[in-house]
């Protein structure tokens, strides 16, 4: 059976630039990701107070999903347990790990905090997206040295093929200090070939990833 998986929308955020479906939609000037992410939130009039409590990895993942063009539609089109979220990166939650370590480095100034510690797990970003969009489906966080289109596509294809998911939010969401890059895809199954931005294939997602470099 030849099934066709398409990228209905994608969003990339890197170097002060937000791109959605091949169009630059916002650019910022801040060297600090915290400031840049806050400016994206404001510019697109996102209204979700929990955003401000998130760590930077969750903010990056959250905004990348928030700005996908079809996300509201797909929330309605699919049931919560039909949507999967598969994220990958290279640094896991190290950005927040360092923050937590700073709170325990000095025994005379020891203040570990649950609100920081909870974000020392990369999959909490999947949890944040799930809460926002009421997604109950398959979630998995992979860590690899580099963006790996071959692995991403073959893993997600078998999830579709085995009917574990009908729609997938998948992406590379990497942050390590003020170095950040994300590219998140909304992937759906279709029998038409004229839909979407591109087919969900290693070559096309590599091209989209390369464009942002």
């Amino acid at each position, binding site marked *: 059976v030849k099934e066709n998986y398409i990228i209905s929308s994608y969003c990339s955020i890197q170097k002060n630039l937000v791109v959605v479906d091949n169009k630059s939609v916002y650019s910022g000037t801040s060297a600090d990701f915290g400031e840049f992410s806050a400016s994206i939130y404001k510019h697109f009039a996102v209204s979700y107070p929990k955003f401000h409590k998130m760590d930077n990895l969750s903010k990056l993942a959250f905004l990348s999903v928030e700005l996908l063009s079809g996300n509201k539609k797909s929330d309605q089109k699919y049931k919560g*347990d039909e949507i999967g979220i598969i994220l990958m990166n290279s640094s896991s939650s190290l950005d927040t790990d360092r923050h937590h370590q700073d*709170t325990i480095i000095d025994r005379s100034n020891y203040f570990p905090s649950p609100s920081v510690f909870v974000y020392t797990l990369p*999959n909490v970003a*999947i949890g944040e997206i799930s*809460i926002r969009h009421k*997604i*109950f489906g398959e*979630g998995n966080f992979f860590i690899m040295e580099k963006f790996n289109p071959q692995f991403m596509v073959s893993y997600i294809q078998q999830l579709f*093929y085995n009917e574990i998911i009908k729609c997938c939010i998948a992406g590379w969401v990497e942050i390590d200090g003020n170095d950040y890059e994300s590219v998140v895809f909304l992937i759906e199954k279709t029998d038409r070939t004229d839909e979407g931005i591109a087919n969900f294939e290693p070559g096309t997602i590599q091209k989209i990833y390369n464009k942002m470099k």
Partner: protein
Amino acid sequence: VTDVFISSDNIITSLGFSTGENAVNMLADKTGIQLTENERIAPTPFYASLINSAQLFDRFSTFDDPDKFTRFEQLAICSLKDALSGSEIDLTDSKTLFILSTTKGNIDLLEKENELKFSRERIYLWNTAHLLQTYFKFRHEPVVISNACISGVQAIITGARLIRANLFKNVVINGTDIITEFVLSGFNSFQSLSTGPCRPFDKTRNGLSLGEGSGTIILTSKPVMSAGTNYILVGEGFSTNDANHISGPSRTGEGLFIAINRLSKKSPLDVDYISAHGTATLYNDEMESIAITRAGLQSVPVNSFKGYWGHTLGAAGIIESIMGIWSINNSVILNTKGYNISGVTNPIFIINKPVQKEINTCLKIASGFGGCNAALIFYKK
């Protein structure tokens, strides 16, 4: 459909350096959870199940220089080495994949005393996986799975799927986590640590005990068959999200219920034994009892292994699955160490003394931070 078999396994905890050694000590009702004084991990004494460092050092010294490797790497190498010695699979085959399951890896390298001992890159999880790949000469690029406390179950689910999709023939999975000041201080800040050895599902439970562990499970589509042995297969498995809270389990057990329900078109699921997550926090155990009851499995025997070796985080799903498989092979369900009187509102069948029973199917469940849940089936062929 391609069948996924278990080729070999290993468990390392404070109770021993092999699956057999752990099982013997668990059958003898021993626990590795002890009141521990360790200034490097916490300013005051704490309950945990820690692997003896001198023993690990001696064991590692018999085949390599321990000073060249971190504690995490030493454990993972010891576990992989033991499991691989009992398996016939070809590591250099490009159809063999190595998966590392961990929450924190070499996180102790963030500590001041360790900063200069190893290169800066060593802390990255992909780098740890690459080091293990090189050590054992796996050809294919490794993958790390890091999904909080379901990491191990999720890694087995993922490995089995990749084999069923004919993308790989063999998947070698190691799950490891060590207990550090980083982890202990974090769980402490959540006030989720027990004041004594943890008591899963018990009325007096008041938190979890952390534990160190490393486990390896080798999955293959092509087992070497010998007569008279039971063959254990990895069945379906699913992960779900509660979409409710990032640090607290769902009060309705929604995510876990959906994961269990997905395993079968029939309801309730036909299963002989449930290996629960059973961390002994108030909310986790209560949530599991709700999900198990909602799935109609309240009369199926359930246990938790956490009272023996604590919560081993990224290793938990691996070593508890291995003990589930051991239970199938030995027709015995171990008691839930620390459990005495039920302290969950839904009456489920918690095992409090070892039970001899023919087991054809075992359900492994797990839940974790980020609202994630997983359910996975093992069965006898």
